[in-house]
C-alpha cells in the first residue's frame, strides 16, 4: 500500500508541476471593494459621481413610462462598488446549475444580501449593507440600527421599519409560526431580545446581556427572510391581516391545511437557498426569480430597484439574467463543465478530486479554473465521539493521550500529496493562518507524523496488550476498534479515499480501524442515536468571519455538528436532554459566552486563543490540512471574478466578492 501511494504521489507531483507552469502567468489579483455612500467615495478618491446610468432594457421601460427613472429607484445613498478589473458592460445570461430541486445551495451565494457584510480585502472588517449604520450603547446591550434610506423592494415598495416590526411581532412572536423562540443569536443572555421601532428607518434591538459580536452575527443574516421582510406581500398570508375567506381560498389553492404552512411557503426563513419561492417575490437581491419556463429550469432577472452602483454611476447588476438548470448528478455536471456549457460552477459542485479533468479540458471548454483557498469543500476533519455509548470506549476516547496518538499517527504530507496534489498545507485542526486568532503552535500541535510516539502514548494508557493479529486490546479484553462512518460524496468527492488512508494509519498503530460508507439518512439517524465511533465532515468556521461567533469545533455548542453529541444536546436543550459535560468542557462554554459578551476586540482575541489553545493541548477533533484549494470553474467570458480569493461557508460562498458586479465580456 505504501509503495502504491509513493507512486501516486510521484505522478501527482509531476502532474501538478505541469499544471502549475501553465497558470503562473495569471494576472495580479484584484479584489473588489465598496464605499458606503457617495460622499465616502468622493472623500476617498476625490472623484465625483454626478450621473446614474442603467441597463438598456430598463431605460426602455422608463421611456415607456412603466418604471420610474433610475435616480428615483436608487436609495439616497447607493453603495459604490470598486470593481475587481474594470467597469463592466450590461447584458448577457449567466448559465448555472443546481443539484437539488428545492434548493439554491449551488447558487445562493451569487445573490444573497446580508444585513451587514464583510470587507473582501481584509476579510474581517464589518461593513454596512442593507443596514446603513449601527450604534451600540455603552453597556453593549442595545444596538440602534438604521435601514439604508430610500431603499426599495424589487417591486418598488419602500423598505421601512414596518418590515422589521412585522418580522418581530408577527413572525418571531407568533406561536404558530415560531413554536420555539430561536436561541442563537436572538436569545443571547438567556432571554428573547426585544425590538423597538424609533422612526421610519431606525430601530433598536435590546439584549439581556452585553453582546459584542452582534454586528458579526448581522453579517450572517440574510435580509428578505430575516430582520427585514417584505411585510406588504406577507400580510396577504397572515391570519392577523388577511381576510378569513381570502386565506381559506389561498389555502385551498396551494393545498395547505394550516394557515402557517401557507405563510411559510412565502416566508421560509430557513435560509437564502429556498428555490421554491414565488415568481417575482419582492427581494433586495440583485436578481429576482421571474420565470420557470420548463421543469427544473429557473430564470432570475435583474432587480430594477437594486441599490448598488459602480464607480462610473452604473446601476448594478451588469448581468441581465441567471439561468439555473437542475442537474441530477455530478458526472453530468462535469460533462457540462468540460463541454463549456456553464459560466460559473461554485464551491458546492466542484472538488479538488476532479481538478485533473477540469484542467485537461480548460481550453476546449473555454473556461478557466481558479484555485481559491477553501474553508469548507474537501477540507476534511475527523471527529471521534467524546460521548461514546460504550463506557470503556468513552473512557479511552476521553483520555487526551488517545486523541494525541490518533493525530500523530496521520501522515499529513502524504494526504496533502494524494488528495490535494500538494497544494494544501498540512495542519492540525485550528483557525486559518491569516486569522487574528492564529498561532503557529496551534497548527503544529500533534500534527507531525510520528507513529513511534503514538504507539508509546497508547502503551502508556494501558493499551499495550495485543491480540494474535497485532491489534491492541482494551482493558476489558476486547479488541480496540474504531469504525469511521461517513456519508461519502455528501461530505466531499474524496471522502472514501481520505477514510481509506486514515484506516491504514490507525491500523499501523494497532487500532483495528474500518470505514463504513452509508447513506446520509442512515448516517444522520445513527449520529442522532449516538451510535457512532468516528465520522468525517468538512471543517468550516475557521476564519475571523465565523470563528468568533460559531466556534463549534472547539466548543460543543451545536447539536449534531461536532464531536460530542450528548454534550451538544445538553447545551442546545439547556440541560433538558443529553449529558452534562465535565468541568473542562464547562470552562470552554464559559469562555465562549464571554467571547460573545465582551465589547473589547482584544479581549475577544485573548479568549478565542484560549479555546484554540485548549484544543491544541487536548485535540477534540483531528484536522489534516489548511489552505485547501477549491477549483472554481469560471467561463472565459465571465469577468471581474478575482483570480485569487477565499471561499467557503465562512465567506458565504462567492458573495464576499460582490457577484453583482461580475459581467459578461463577449
Amino acid at each position, binding site marked *: 500500500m505504501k509503495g502504491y501511494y509513493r507512486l501516486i504521489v510521484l505522478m501527482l507531483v509531476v502532474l501538478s508541476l505541469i499544471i502549475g507552469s501553465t497558470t503562473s502567468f495569471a494576472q495580479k489579483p484584484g479584489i473588489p471593494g465598496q464605499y458606503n455612500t457617495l460622499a465616502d467615495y468622493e472623500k476617498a478618491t476625490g472623484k465625483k459621481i454626478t450621473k446614474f446610468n442603467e441597463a438598456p432594457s430598463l431605460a426602455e421601460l422608463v421611456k415607456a413610462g412603466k418604471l420610474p427613472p433610475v435616480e428615483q429607484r436608487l436609495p439616497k445613498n447607493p453603495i459604490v462598488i470598486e470593481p475587481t478589473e474594470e467597469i463592466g458592460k450590461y447584458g448577457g445570461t449567466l*448559465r448555472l446549475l443546481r443539484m*437539488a*430541486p*428545492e*434548493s439554491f*445551495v449551488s447558487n445562493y451565494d451569487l445573490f444573497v444580501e446580508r444585513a451587514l457584510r464583510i470587507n473582501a480585502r481584509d476579510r474581517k472588517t464589518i461593513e454596512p449593507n442593507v443596514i446603513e449604520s449601527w450604534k451600540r450603547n455603552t453597556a453593549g446591550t442595545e444596538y440602534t440600527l438604521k435601514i439604508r434610506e430610500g431603499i426599495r423592494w424589487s417591486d418598488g415598495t419602500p423598505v421601512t421599519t414596518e418590515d422589521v416590526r412585522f418580522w418581530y411581532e408577527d413572525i418571531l412572536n407568533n406561536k404558530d*409560526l415560531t*413554536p*420555539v*423562540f*430561536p*436561541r442563537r443569536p436572538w436569545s443571547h443572555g438567556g432571554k428573547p431580545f426585544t425590538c423597538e421601532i424609533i422612526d421610519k428607518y431606525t430601530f433598536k434591538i435590546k439584549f439581556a446581556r452585553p453582546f459584542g459580536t452582534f454586528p458579526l452575527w448581522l453579517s450572517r443574516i440574510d435580509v428578505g427572510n430575516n430582520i427585514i421582510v417584505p411585510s406588504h406581500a406577507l400580510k396577504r398570508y397572515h391570519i392577523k391581516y388577511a381576510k378569513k375567506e381570502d386565506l381559506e381560498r389561498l389555502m385551498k389553492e396551494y*393545498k*395547505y391545511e394550516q394557515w*402557517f*404552512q401557507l405563510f*411559510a*411557503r412565502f416566508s*421560509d426563513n*430557513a*435560509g437564502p*437557498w429556498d428555490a*421554491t419561492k414565488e415568481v417575482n417575490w419582492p427581494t433586495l437581491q440583485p436578481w429576482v426569480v421571474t420565470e420557470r*419556463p*420548463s*421543469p*427544473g429550469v429557473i430564470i432570475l432577472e435583474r432587480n430594477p430597484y437594486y441599490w448598488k452602483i459602480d464607480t462610473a454611476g452604473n446601476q448594478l447588476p451588469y448581468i441581465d439574467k441567471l*439561468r439555473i438548470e*437542475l*442537474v*441530477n*448528478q455530478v458526472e*453530468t455536471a462535469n*460533462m*457540462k463543465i*468540460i*463541454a463549456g*456549457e456553464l459560466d460559473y460552477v461554485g464551491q*458546492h459542485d466542484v472538488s479538488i478530486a476532479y481538478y485533473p479533468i477540469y484542467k485537461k479540458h480548460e481550453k476546449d471548454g473555454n473556461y478557466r479554473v481558479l484555485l481559491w483557498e477553501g474553508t469548507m469543500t474537501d477540507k476534511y476533519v475527523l471527529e471521534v465521539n467524546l460521548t461514546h455509548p460504550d463506557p470503556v470506549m468513552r473512557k479511552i476516547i476521553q483520555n487526551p493521550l488517545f486523541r494525541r496518538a490518533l493525530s500523530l499517527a496521520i501522515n499529513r504530507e502524504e494526504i496533502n500529496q494524494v488528495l490535494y496534489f500538494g497544494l494544501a498545507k498540512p495542519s492540525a485542526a485550528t483557525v486559518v493562518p491569516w486569522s487574528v486568532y492564529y498561532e503557529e503552535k496551534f497548527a503544529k500541535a500533534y500534527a507531525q507524523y510520528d507513529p513511534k510516539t503514538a504507539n508509546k502514548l497508547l502503551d502508556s494508557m494501558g493499551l499495550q496488550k495485543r491480540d494474535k493479529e497485532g491489534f491492541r486490546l482494551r482493558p476489558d479484553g476486547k479488541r480496540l476498534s474504531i469504525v469511521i462512518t461517513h*456519508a461519502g460524496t*455528501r*461530505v466531499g468527492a474524496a471522502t472514501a479515499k481520505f477514510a481509506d488512508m486514515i484506516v491504514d494509519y490507525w491500523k499501523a498503530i494497532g487500532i483495528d480501524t474500518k470505514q463504513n460508507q452509508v*447513506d*446520509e*439518512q*442512515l448516517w*444522520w*439517524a*445513527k449520529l442522532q442515536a449516538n451510535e457512532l465511533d468516528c465520522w468525517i465532515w468538512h471543517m*468550516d468556521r475557521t476564519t475571523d468571519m465565523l470563528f468568533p461567533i*460559531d466556534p*463549534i469545533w472547539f466548543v460543543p455548542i*451545536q*447539536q*449534531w*455538528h461536532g464531536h460530542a453529541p450528548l454534550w451538544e444536546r445538553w447545551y*442546545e*436543550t439547556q440541560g433538558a436532554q443529553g449529558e452534562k459535560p465535565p468541568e473542562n468542557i464547562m470552562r470552554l462554554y464559559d469562555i465562549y459566552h464571554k467571547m460573545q459578551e465582551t465589547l473589547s476586540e482584544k479581549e475577544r482575541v485573548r479568549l478565542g486563543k484560549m479555546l484554540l489553545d485548549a484544543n491544541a493541548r487536548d485535540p477534540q477533533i483531528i484536522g489534516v490540512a489548511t489552505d485547501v484549494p477549491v477549483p472554481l470553474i469560471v467561463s472565459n467570458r465571465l469577468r471581474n471574478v478575482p483570480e485569487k480569493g477565499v471561499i*467557503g*461557508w465562512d465567506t458565504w460562498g462567492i458573495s464576499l466578492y460582490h457577484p453583482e458586479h461580475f459581467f459578461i465580456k463577449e
Partner: protein
Amino acid sequence: MIEYLIRRLLFLIPVLLIVSIVAYMVIELPPGDYLTTHIMRLRAAGTHVAEDEIARLTRMFGLDKPPHIRYFLWIWKIVRYGDLGLSFQWNKPVTEVIGERLALTMTISIITLLFSWTIGILIGIYSATHQYSIFDYSFTFLGFIGVSIPSYLLALVIMYFVYSRFGLAVTGLFSPAYADAPWSIHKVLDLLSHIWLPVVIIGTGGTAGIARIMRGTLLDELRKQYVITARAKGLPERRLIFKYPVRIAINPLISSISWLLPSIISGETITSIVLNLPTCGPVLFRALMTQDEYLAGSFILILSSLAIIGALIADLVLAWIDPRIRYEKMEG
C-alpha cells in the same frame, strides 16, 4: 363482456388500496423522514439547523403526526378530492410536479415503444424466416449485445463518444436556444433532432429483447403443420406468414402490455438521470431517495394502476387478436 370489464375494474380498488399501504410502509421503513434529508442538505451547505428550527419545520411539513395518521389523511384526500397531496421537495402539489413532466415523458416513451416494436418485430420475423443465414447470425449477435448492455452504460459510452468527437455534451432534449422558449414549430423540430439519442439508447435493450422473443415463438410456429399445409396448398409466402404464424407469435408480446404501461411513465429512470432528461423517472428516483412521501407514494399508486389497467388491456387485445382465446372465454 361488460360484466367481465366491470368485475376487472372493481378488482382495481382493493388491489390499489393494498399497494398504497405497502408502498407507504416501504417509504416509511428507512430511518428518518423528509426532514432528515432537508436538514442534511442544509448541514452539507454549512448551515446549522437548531432544535427550535427543527420544531418549526416539523410542524410546517406536517410531520408531527404519526405515519398511519398521515397515510389516512393522504388516502382520504385522494378519495374525497382527487388530491394527491403536496411534494415536500418541490413545495408544489404532486399533480403539478408529475403533470409538467408527463407530456415529454410520454413522448419519449411512446416513440421509443414504436421504435423498438417496429424494429424488433421486423428483425424477429426476418431472423425466423431466414434462420441460420448470415443476417440471422449478425442480428442474433447484435441482439445479445443489446440485451446485455444496460442502457445507462450505453448512454455513457455514447456521451463520451459524442463529446470526444464533437465536443458536445449530449444532455437534455433541446438546444439552449429553444430550451426556455414557448412551444413552436421550431421547438418541436428541435426536440425531434435531439430525441433520437435517448430513443435509441433506451430502445436498444427492448428492441433486442423483442426481436429474440419474436424469433423464438415464430420459429416454433413455422414448424407447425398448419403452416406446412398452407404452404403445400400454394398460399403466397408473405401472406401465409403474416396472416397466421406472426399473429400467434405476437401473443407473448401483447401480454407484456401490462408492464409496458407503467414504463411509459417511469421507464429507464437511470438513463434519464445520466442524460439529464426532464422526465418523470429522475423525479421518482429522487422522491424515493429523499422520502418525499406523498410524491413517492402517489407515483407508486399511479404506476400500479397503470400496471393493472395494462393487464386488462392486454387481455382484451389478446382476445381480439387471437380467436382461440376469445372462444375459450365465451365458452368458459
